[in-house]
Structure formats: structure tokens, C-alpha cells
């Protein structure tokens, strides 16, 4: 029942959102990632967005109409409405003036709290309440560096840079940290933002039933390479995911604490370089957090990107991977 009115609400909104899209983007597909969620978390977020806009929008819309009507009716010299030069108080109106916002805010507050628990990144009930008793969630440890993403799959002892591949119909749980500075992990169509901070661990989770490719973004400014710090997220069928895991596991390279230190040095990922690591030293994620807490930093040279072209030449010459 509840699910149904939620869906009706969302579909209605999607059709409404279609109009400007057709107008401006022709056949390029729906560019409104936020209105076009492909995962449970993003879907829930959209529900609350629509609810909020419907409630607040109707109040704001009516107020706007009221103001416009007053502007029309009481314009000087037009004599459309009665002029009362001393009228400045009415208890009835005061009750409405305070009452309407109070009721609206009360109503929204209830939903806001409910929603906060549903999409709580540490324990999102939209995912955890529906987990199969023996469902085997996928775990991913996310390590953000300046300015790349490393996705470690501890269950498979492997890692991938700058590309996130996940099975559909499966809950995915993330642990996230960063080496140098703070940024934010965001896949608009799948899951909302969570900060990624050095020396600390945050969590997030997602689940999607839609096979496809989605854009991942570093959504908080982290320095010169932030704009290029994007990653593709691929949702695969479980069979395809299994094959992909095997492919990664055949990669000749591996990631150790030492090679990680080299990898984590500042690097602008202009070419969206994807690399596979068939094995990862155990506990890399915790090791990074420990090191940072003990004072390790990855300093940025002064004026590093004062001339970006020159810097890119230098970086390309270094052939880093």
C-alpha cells in the first residue's frame, strides 16, 4: 500500500520532469540523475524529495499567488480593493500565519526523521530490513587518495582503481577512508553522499536491481585533481560479476603496503586509468587509517598545478601506475 503511493508519486514526478528534458535534451536520455534513481538508497531519497516539494511547494506556491493577487488588487489608483490605512492586526490571520508553517514543519519533521533512519549510511533500513537471511552482501573498502579511488574487495583479496564494479540484486557495504584530505563519495543514481576523511572510517551501503553503468563522483573539493576524480560504477548480473572477479584475479600486479605508498602520491587521473590488482596485502584499509592517525601525510608540492599543462607532461613522463 505504502509502496504503491510512493511509486505513484515518483512516476508522476518523472513525467512532469520529462517536459523540460524533451525540450532541452532531445534523445540524450534522462540527464536528471536525481530524478532517475537506479538503486534503493537513491530511490528512497527521491521519495522524500518529492514529498517535501509537494508539501512545501504547495505552501510556497499559494503564498506566491496570494502576493501576486494582492499586488494586482491593491495597486494604487486602480481602486480594485478597499484601502484601510490603519489595518495592521488580525488574530485570525495570526493564527493561520503561525499555524500553517507549524503544521507543515511538524509533518515534514516526522518524515525527515523517518527518512534519516531509512537511509542511515551506517545501517540503512531500506536495505537491511529486506536482506535475505543468507544473503551474502559484497563488502568494499574504499580508499581515496589525492586524487584517485582505490576499491578493495576484501572478500576476494583484490583491488581496482577508479572503477567500481558490483553485482545487482545484492546489498553492498562500504567502509571508506582517505589518505590525505577529505572528500566525498557520491554515485548520484545509486547512493547519496558520504564524507571520506583521513584517519577515520565512514560507512555507506547500496543496493541496485538495475544493470547498467553509473557515474561516481568525488563531490567535495580535495585539491587540484578533484574534477578528474570520477569513477564509473558498473552494476552487473551476478554471473557477469563472477567473471569480472576472475578477470581481476588474473591480473599480474598486486598491492602491498609499500606499493600503496607509491600509488597514493598525488596523481591527477586525467586519463581515467583503471588498474586491477589480483591480490592486496591483508588489512590495507586499517593499515592506512593507523598510519594517518600516527601522523603520516602525503604532502603536495607548492604551486603544483600552477601550470597544469606542464604538470601533466611531467606526470605522464613518470609513467606511474
Amino acid at each position, binding site marked *: 500500500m505504502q509502496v504503491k503511493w510512493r511509486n505513484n508519486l515518483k512516476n508522476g514526478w518523472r513525467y512532469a520532469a520529462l517536459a*523540460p528534458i524533451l525540450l*532541452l*535534451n532531445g534523445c*540524450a536520455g534522462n*540527464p536528471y540523475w*536525481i530524478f532517475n534513481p537506479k538503486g534503493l538508497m537513491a530511490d528512497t531519497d527521491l521519495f*522524500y524529495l518529492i514529498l517535501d*516539494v509537494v508539501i512545501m511547494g504547495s505552501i510556497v506556491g499559494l*503564498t506566491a499567488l496570494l*502576493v501576486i493577487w*494582492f*499586488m494586482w488588487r491593491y*495597486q494604487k489608483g486602480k481602486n480594485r*480593493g*478597499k*484601502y*484601510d490605512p490603519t*489595518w*495592521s*492586526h488580525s488574530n*485570525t490571520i495570526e493564527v493561520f*500565519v503561525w499555524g500553517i*508553517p*507549524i503544521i507543515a514543519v511538524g509533518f*515534514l519533521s516526522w518524515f*525527515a526523521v523517518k*527518512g*534519516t533512519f531509512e*537511509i*542511515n549510511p*551506517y545501517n540503512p533500513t531500506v536495505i537491511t530490513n529486506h536482506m535475505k537471511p543468507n544473503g551474502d552482501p559484497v563488502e568494499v573498502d574504499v580508499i581515496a587518495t589525492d586524487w584517485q579511488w582505490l576499491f578493495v574487495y576484501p572478500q576476494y583479496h583484490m583491488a581496482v582503481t577508479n572503477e567500481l564494479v558490483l553485482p545487482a540484486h545484492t546489498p553492498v557495504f562500504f567502509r571508506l577512508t582517505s589518505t*590525505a584530505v577529505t572528500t*566525498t563519495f557520491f554515485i548520484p543514481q545509486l547512493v*547519496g553522499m558520504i*564524507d571520506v576523511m*583521513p*584517519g577515520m572510517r*565512514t560507512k555507506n551501503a547500496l543496493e541496485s536491481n538495475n544493470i547498467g553503468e553509473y*557515474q561516481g*563522483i568525488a*563531490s*567535495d*573539493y580535495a*585539491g*587540484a*585533481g*578533484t574534477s*578528474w576524480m*570520477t569513477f564509473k560504477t558498473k552494476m552487473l548480473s551476478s554471473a557477469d560479476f563472477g567473471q569480472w572477479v576472475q578477470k581481476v584475479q588474473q591480473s599480474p600486479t598486486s598491492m602491498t603496503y609499500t606499493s600503496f605508498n607509491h600509488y597514493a602520491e598525488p596523481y591527477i587521473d586525467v586519463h581515467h586509468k583503471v588498474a586491477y590488482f589480483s591480490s592486496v596485502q591483508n588489512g590495507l584499509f586499517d593499515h592506512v587509517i593507523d598510519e*594517518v592517525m*600516527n*601522523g603520516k601525510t602525503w*604532502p*603536495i608540492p*607548492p*604551486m603544483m*598545478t*600552477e601550470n*597544469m*599543462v606542464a604538470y601533466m607532461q611531467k606526470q605522464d613522463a613518470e609513467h606511474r601506475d
Partner: protein
Amino acid sequence: MLVDLAGGWNPMLGRLAWSQIPYDNPILAPLFVAVVIGTIIILGLITYYGKWTYLWKEWLTTVDHKKLGVMYIILGLVMLFRGFIDGLMIRTQQAWAVGTHSSGVFGATHGYLTPFHFGQVYSAHGLIMILLAATPLLVGFMNIIVPIQIGARDMAYPYLNALGLWITAAAGALIMISLFVGDFAHNGWFGYAPIFELQYSPGVGVDYWIWTMELVALGTTLGGINILATIIKMRAPGMSWGRLPIFVWASLSANVIALTSFPALQVALGLVAADRYLGAHFFTAGLGGNLMLYTNLFWIWGHPEVYFVILPAFGMMSEIFPTFSEKPLFGYITMVLASLAIAGVSWLVWLHHFFTMGAGPYVNSAFSVATMLVGIPTGVKVFNWAFTMYRGRLTFNAAMLWAIGALFLLLIGGLTGMMLAVPAINYMVHNSVFVVAHFHSMLLVIVYAIFASVIYWFPKVFGFKLDEFWAKTMFWLFSAGTTLVFVPMYMLGFMGMTRRLDYVFNTAWHPYLLVMEFGIVVYMISVLAFFALLYVSIRDHAKNRVGTDAWGTSRSLEWLTHSPVPFYNFAVLPHISTRDEVAWRRDNGIDHVQPDHYEDIHMPNNTGVAIILGGLTFVLGFALVWRIWWLCILSLLAIMALVIYRSFKGDPGYIITAAELEEMEKDAMRREAQIGKQHYRVGGGVLGDAIAYERSDLPPLASQPGSSVGLDHRS
């Protein structure tokens, strides 16, 4: 040295070196030349016309709150212009650097700004617009209007007032000089931990950012103390709390916020400075630092600050709507309560700026609900303005248009604010251009209210009205710019475009970015219209002269005295009989009653100490940025010596005798009579027990006057 500095340091010049001057930068070098030439021309003109003494005596050393206010506003407008240029640069980069195939010049791979440079531009844009444009503009208006509205001759502390201005100006100078000497912070106007630590921002940019903000914070706190003391202690006889004009209430609540929240910013930045200068670990990721603490401390100031700037804007709107609706403000008491409620709640919501930092659902829920509570008094205000227009007689002149524009922007900003307040929505649009669109809607409320006020109060300060045609033209151009820039920006927010991208990876966003580029060009044209407005109005000023009550429908006390306001504001302090005093006097035909005799008045002397202290704080800031320790110590000692000297010397003030006063008043009245709009009547006591001026030969006012417009309780 306590910390390792990249790029060397020497005892004489600190970190300063030739390589820090960007003379080879293709954007900055020509700009620098232009600035130098412009400065030489201006200084030359001043010298040529022999205006140095005038400038020094009448402006630079003044303690007159109106002149200080005007200088605050000029400072704010100059910085607003600089901020506009930054905005143009940001928009141009984002319209250009889209997709892998976009071209790049000046060392950028895409567009014309390198990432480091782009970061500096938007960080400066944000800081300038909020702290050096909006804040001084509003402080300027509070400075000018509050004392007149409460019937005072000046601020409680005239010298402190000047000091506040010159320290703020020093902050402005510091951020401007960062263009040409060194660089500015790239880490956003609010700064992130730990990217502003020395390891990740080794240059002087962050140091400029710290000391600029520290100086503005100091200047604004001093100003806040002054305005609070003025409102509490300097009200004219009869000006009880219930009769206070609504703009004064707004200023009061705003400055309570300022006084209580700015110290948090100063502490936060002080700790950042400790990290960067002393090698402390307050906000580092490791060694016991807590970077989330910075974010908390910053927003404990940051959120109240946004209400510090919006409340005076609400106050301005609450003055303008009644004047051009020709009736009192609807729900005065409600309005006062709403202002105080906004101020109160604004301390309790800071966490909504980082719902995504990973606090638990209970914490996020609490702050979400608290944030939405702010929506209640804000909504109440909008309704009250609407009902002020109800049964009114509305004139849509330029001031009213700007105020109505502000009202509609507030509706949009409020709607989007209420969206952001829900964590489930916030997770999707936080750090996206949707947030940028939200707060620009809100800050534009302020900009609109400011332009409305410039038009509304200009005749009071300068004695003539601004040109209606150009004021309206500017309004429509500016509003077209607003629509063209911010409608696409909201749309991009829903497309998932995140903020602060120096390179835009998604080409689907390009059309929208191009529309926004067009919008910012329209904005720039509206700026030209503003210059035209000033030019035409000054050219035609003789035609547009006004009497005391410039609009004929004004309501509060500032419209009782002459336009332009004499330096002593009121020759004889008026006796306040009701709320909306001027409307009441006008309705009872006593608005042009003049006092029947004058008494000596006591005024503060001008002082050069304030501007010298301002200059010294600038030197101190500059020395701190570059770590020129001897200069730091020297300027600090000089500041201390000067402060102590001034404290012991004090200011005996001077006396304007009754005869001089009468002469000046007669002049003013003669001028106003020439305009043909004023007929003066002499005599103090009128209408039974109502009094226009406090007079020793009359008993103190015992009862309310019969016809008190603002207190009519008919429904």
C-alpha cells in the same frame, strides 16, 4: 622555525620573494597595470582639485555614523563588484572547460584557469561576497539608519565605529593585495580540514584567508557591540521597546547573533593559524588532531552568520513594504518575535551543513528538525509582508520592485532550504550546485533588499532621489540575470552536478552552463545600468531634491529630520509618542512642527587614530601572512601604543551652541522651503497631551496619544 616552510624564508622579508609576484601571469599582470594606472589617476585627480584636506577632514577621520555608513557601503559595493568579476570568471571557466575535447590556454589543460587558480577565484568569491560585500553593506545601512531611527545623535561609541570600518577596510585591502602578491586560498570560502594544513596548502594563500577573515570578524564584532549599545542606551525620550522601528529590531537581533557567533570563528581560525604557524595539531588528520572539530566550529559561526546577514535584509523589507503600501506593517509584534526566534534557532542548526559527515541518525534527525524550525518564523515574515500589502495602496516604484523581488527569491530559497534540511534529500544534493543555487537565492534576497534600500534611503542621506527609470531598468536586467543563472543551476543540481568543478566531465551539462554564462553577461550589463543610474541621478540631482519626508508616505523617525541629514541628526531630540512616529505626526498635521528653541549640543571630535590603526592592522596582517616577524612585532607594538595613548587622551568633544544650531537649522529649512514641499510651524506641544519635542517647560508624557496608528487592533 616551528614548521617546515616550502620555498624558503629569510629574516628580512619572511617568505616574500620576487617569484611570489605573478608578473608573468597573463590575467593578473595586465590587471595589475590597470590598477596601478587607475590609482595614479585617482590620486592625481584628488591632488589636482586640492581635495586632500577635504578628504582627510570630512571622510577619513570622521566619526559621523552616516559618513562611516556611506564608506561601509562604498567598500561593500567595490567588493561586490570584485565578487561579480570573480563570478564571471568562474562561470566562464565552467562554460568553457567542458569535456575532454575542450581547449585550454594559459597553462590550463581545459579552459583558461588552472585548478589551483580556479580554486582561488571561487574561494575569494565566496569570502568576499559574504564577508566583504554583504556584511559591510548591511553594517553600513545599520550604521546610517539605526541611530536616526531611534532618535540619537550618533552611535554610542563613535570612535569605535570608525575603528570597525577601518579594520574591515584593512581586511578588504588584504584580500585585494593577495591578487598581486602571493596567492589566495584554494580551499573554498569556509575552508576544509585538513586541506588547509601546511602539507596540503604550502603557499601563503591560506594565510591570507585566515587573516582576512580574522580582521573582518574583529571589525564586525566591534561594530556589533556598538550597534547593540546604541540601541539599548541611546533611544530618544519616549522611544520604548514597543515603538522601535522594525529595522532596529532586526539590527538588534542580527547583532546579538554577530556578537555571540563571531568569536567562534576567531577561535577556529586562531587554531588553524596555530597549526600552520606553530606546528600544532588541532585539525590535522593524525597525531591527535580532529578535523571534524574545525567543521563544527566553523559552522557554529557560519550558520548564525547567514542569519546575521539576512535579518537586516528582512528589516529593510519590513520598512519598505509599509511605506509603499501606505499602511502600517502587519503584525509588528509577530515580526519582532519572528526575528528573535530566527536569531535564537540559528545557534542550534549548524550541523545541517555537514549531514554527510557521518553523524548517527539521531544527531542528524535532531538537527534536521531544528533546521526546519527556522522555516516557521521565516514563513511568518513572508505572510506578514503579504498582509501588509493587503488593503493597502501599492506603488510599484523601483524600491518596491526590488523588495518584491526579494520576497519571491525568499520563497524559492526557503523552499530549497527546507529540502536541504531533510537528510534523505540532503545526501543527494549536498556539495552540488543545488546548494549553491539555494544560498545564492538567499543571498540575492539580501542583494535585492540592499538595492531597494539604496533607492529608499538614498534621498535621506544625500537629499535627492535616484533616477526611477534607470533604477527600474537595472532591476529588470538584474532579475533577468538572476533567472538565467539560477534556474539552470537548480536544474544542474538535479542532474547531479557537484560544486567547485574546474573541469566539467559531463558534456550533457554544457547547454545549461552556456545559458548561465549568458546570464552572467546580463548581470554585468545590469552593473553598467547601475553606473548609469548613479551618473544620471547625480547629473539631475537639482531636479530630484526632496524634503524631510522623501516619499510622502514614510513612517519611521528618520524621515522627521532634514534630507540630507545634518551631522547632528536632530537639532532637538524629538519626543516619541507612538510607533510609526512620522506617519502619526503626518496624519495629525504636526510633521513640520519645529522646536521653538534650541539648546547647546555636544558632539564627538574627529580622530585620525582609527584610520591609522586600520592601516597598522593591515600591515600586521600582511606581515603575518608573509611571516615577517620583525614587522609583526613592530606593528603590534605600534597598535598597542596607539590604543593606550587614545584611551588616556579620550575625547572631550565639542559644543555646538544653540545660536549656531539655529543658524544651521534655518539654512536647512530655507533650502527645503525652496523645493516647495515644506511648511514649517514652530511650537512644541500639540494635540492635547502629545508632544513633538521634549521640553523642560512641559510635564513628562503620561499617556498614549489618542490616534496611534501602529497600535490599532481592529480585525
